């Protein structure tokens, strides 16, 4: 079962590399924010899978919760900032 989790983690890391294209070459800055949000969502699942691989799920789950909240607040703060500024 650990080998399956390791394979799924490696696959998600490859998807993170694909998302990084949108972060680096995004036409507008708001595309980059969307790319960072997608990478954060994938990182969440990779962290949970790593908790199962190392057998210390109780420690990694707290990191997963904090990462979810920080990802949400970061995206919301960027949205509020660009909405108040009125241009991109």
């Amino acid at each position: 079962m650990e080998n399956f989790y390791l394979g799924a983690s490696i696959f998600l890391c490859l998807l993170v590399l694909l998302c990084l294209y949108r972060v680096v070459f995004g036409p507008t800055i708001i595309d980059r924010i969307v790319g960072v949000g997608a990478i954060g969502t994938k990182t969440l699942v990779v962290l949970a899978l790593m908790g199962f691989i190392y057998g210390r799920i109780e420690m990694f789950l707290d990191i997963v919760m904090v990462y979810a909240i920080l990802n949400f607040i970061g995206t919301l703060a960027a949205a509020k900032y660009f909405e108040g500024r009125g241009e991109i």
Partner: protein
Amino acid sequence: MEIVKIISIVFILTGCFLFTTGTIGLLRFPDFYSRMHATGKGDTLAVLICLIGLALYHGFHHGAILDSIKLVVVAVFIFLANPTATHAISRAAFRCGVKPWTRGGNK
């Protein structure tokens, strides 16, 4: 192999498939709103399915129920928070004047 492991593997593979479709949409769609559409819906369902599959594998017996409930709480939080973030950022883009893509082009 137990039936729970098979269900967990099926859930995680479905989540990986939905992540793949979201990433392809993020890379290939022509404008900001359609990219937002692909990654907002696909990633939300993918995280939900992956975390619930992990919670099913971890089990709900005595001694593991706290971690499983934490996984379900994270899944519910993502299910509420990710559409909120998607809505907020697409509203910000609309108020900033990002034009939606049309077939004829709107340059």
